[in-house]
């Protein structure tokens, strides 16, 4: 009964003009952030200096193709056609996650006036912009088609040549591999599907963390500056229910706000990935879904559950930490300074996971990043999809331990007089420091 009373009051206090305003402001910030990501992806698409090519045909025609690609401005990295290692894997040594394969019979097909086969082969290791976005091979293939066809047209159609062949002299197949599986689908399509999971989920998590922190800290700070907290804690209610009501209210409110965001961002992300938008075509969408499934890149129910558990832990940690920080705050003003470090802790790993794979960073940086509990949440869906189950569970365990510790601390603070004395000493120090200046 008393808990419900407290919870209702907390919710009423949270939904104010101020919180709605901050919602709108962060909405704008995320709009800008989304725009930056969009333009960044574009610039990466334009910048394709080199392309890895495996020439299995070793014919005159294939040599000509390599020349054509070079003339289009690509630097060709030749892969060893004799090597037993698949060309994509070889390409990785040259920092490429995609390559062109000129299969045997390429030259013969061209001589015979049939469209010659050309393969674009990509490998997915993650969804971040730099790890997955290598489109050099597919761009080179496009360039090759246009050069070859314009040459054929310039030379004039020889007798008996199919005009369709002159326009489309190459038959390009795109394959993508992930988790040791290969499917006939363009890496670009996979990438944009992956973006929805690799970007979208962390973005919503980030928003949720931001909200929960801000709501919770200012809820306590407000009570402190109005001294309503003293009134509340001298009343016959258990301190635990005061704490729980605050955490529940902030949790519920931030959940609701993230839901609103998810809808807004969903349409926004849809627009951003317009190039590979397949939603109009049900059949194509189904084949993409099938390919994702084959590659092990679509989430199973079990994986979704695990992701949910981790999200839940993340929110609870956020709430517990912000309760502790709120206890340190003297009033609303000083609470703003306390929000900043938590925001950075949420922001930095978010940015890092957005642009690169953490595993590619120096070990010390990796450790630092993994000490931040949110990092594990941002990487969770990619870890689950790309089979890094061990890393996922380690993160989950770390978060569980951290949650227990922070929750314990929060309860300790709230059930003792530290909730008041911590603040006062804090402000006392500040005053002293100010005087000494």
């Amino acid at each position, binding site marked *: 009964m008393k808990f419900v009373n407290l919870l209702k009051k907390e919710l009423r*206090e949270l939904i104010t003009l101020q919180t709605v305003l901050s919602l709108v402001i962060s909405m704008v910030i995320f709009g800008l952030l989304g725009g930056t990501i969009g333009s960044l992806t574009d610039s990466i698409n334009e910048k394709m200096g080199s392309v890895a090519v495996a020439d299995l045909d070793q014919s005159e025609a294939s040599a000509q193709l390599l020349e054509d690609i070079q003339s289009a401005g690509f630097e060709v990295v030749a892969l060893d056609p004799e090597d037993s290692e698949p060309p994509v894997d070889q390409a990785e040594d040259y920092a490429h996650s995609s390559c062109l394969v000129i299969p045997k019979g390429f030259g013969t097909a061209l001589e015979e006036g049939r469209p010659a086969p050309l393969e674009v082969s990509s490998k997915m290791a993650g969804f971040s912009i730099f790890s997955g976005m290598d489109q050099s091979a597919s761009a080179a293939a496009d360039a090759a088609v246009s050069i070859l066809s314009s040459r054929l047209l310039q030379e004039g159609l020889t007798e008996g040549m199919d005009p369709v062949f002159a326009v489309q002299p190459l038959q390009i197949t795109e394959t993508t591999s992930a988790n040791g599986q290969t499917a006939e689908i363009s890496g670009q399509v996979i990438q944009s599907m992956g973006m929805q999971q690799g970007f979208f989920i962390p973005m919503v998590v980030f928003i949720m963390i931001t909200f929960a922190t801000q709501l919770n800290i200012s809820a306590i700070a407000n009570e402190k*500056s*109005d001294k309503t907290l003293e009134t*509340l804690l*001298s*009343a*016959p209610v*258990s301190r635990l229910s005061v704490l729980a009501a605050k955490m529940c209210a902030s949790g519920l409110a931030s959940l609701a706000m993230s839901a609103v965001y998810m809808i807004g961002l969903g349409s926004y992300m849809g627009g951003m990935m317009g190039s590979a938008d397949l939603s109009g075509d049900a059949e194509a969408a189904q084949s993409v879904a099938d390919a994702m499934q084959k590659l092990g890149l679509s989430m199973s129910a079990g994986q979704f559950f695990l992701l949910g558990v981790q999200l839940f832990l993340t929110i609870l940690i956020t709430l517990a930490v912000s309760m502790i920080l709120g206890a340190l705050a003297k009033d609303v003003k000083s609470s703003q300074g306390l929000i900043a470090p938590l925001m950075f802790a949420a922001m930095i790993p978010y940015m890092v996971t957005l642009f690169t794979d953490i595993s590619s960073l120096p070990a010390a940086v990796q450790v630092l990043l993994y000490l931040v509990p949110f990092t594990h949440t941002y990487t969770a869906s990619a870890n689950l999809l790309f089979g890094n189950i061990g890393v996922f569970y380690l993160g989950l365990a770390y978060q569980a331990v951290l949650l227990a510790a922070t929750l314990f601390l929060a309860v300790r603070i709230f059930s003792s*007089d530290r909730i*008041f004395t911590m603040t006062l000493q804090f402000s006392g120090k500040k005053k002293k420091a100010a005087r000494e200046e």
Partner: protein
Amino acid sequence: MEPESTRRPALEVDGLTKQYKTVLAANQVRFEVWPGEIFALIGPNGAGKTTTIRMISTLLQPTSGDARVDGFSAVQEAARVRERITYLPDEAGAYKNMTGRKYLQFMAALFSNDRAEQKRCVEMAEEICGLGARLKEKISSYSRGMSRKLLLARAVMTRPSLAILDEPTSGLDILNALEIRRMIQGLADEGMAFLISSHNMLEIEYLSDRVGIISKGVLHCVGRPDELKASAGAKNLEEVFEKVVQEYEVR
């Protein structure tokens, strides 16, 4: 051993001491408040009034000593004490987004799960605070005097054994302060015990039955204002304070 007296103090403060890191804010403070009595802790800012009051209100853990409300220890049986007291912090506010009535209902529900009892509390508070139709408005629209009256009504509506009010009239204009003093006096006449604090010694003379003079954490003397004035040969409590502190420092 004597059998327990039929008249037991509402509050017994027994050697309450609070040592902050560098400041001894309360040093062996000892006094009691009887039912129906208005007891005032008076002393300048920083004397230790709020610290003492917060220990009695179960918000601060004393370094040593104890306070008993209706015989229950603030240290050992804080939950029991919280059922019997109400505390109005100095400069306290209320939840600004609530209406006055909603605030009263919220607070009443913290003290009792019984609907009828909650209703009785809210009705009493509505009558005492005298805010009338303004109770339907948000607290953010209230003046300082109005919210103080609301908070005071909240503090007494649950009919606590002991109402603890920290600087209840500070920052108010004369008329509001007068009104609040009358409210307190009226309720004390009905048997409620009050522990109040003030740094305004002249004002408190008219309100309180007994006062305790506190300075630098030490409670120097306790008594009726006229007794204290007579024994110190002083015109008012400010002069009493001056003499008592001088005497103490000479010793």
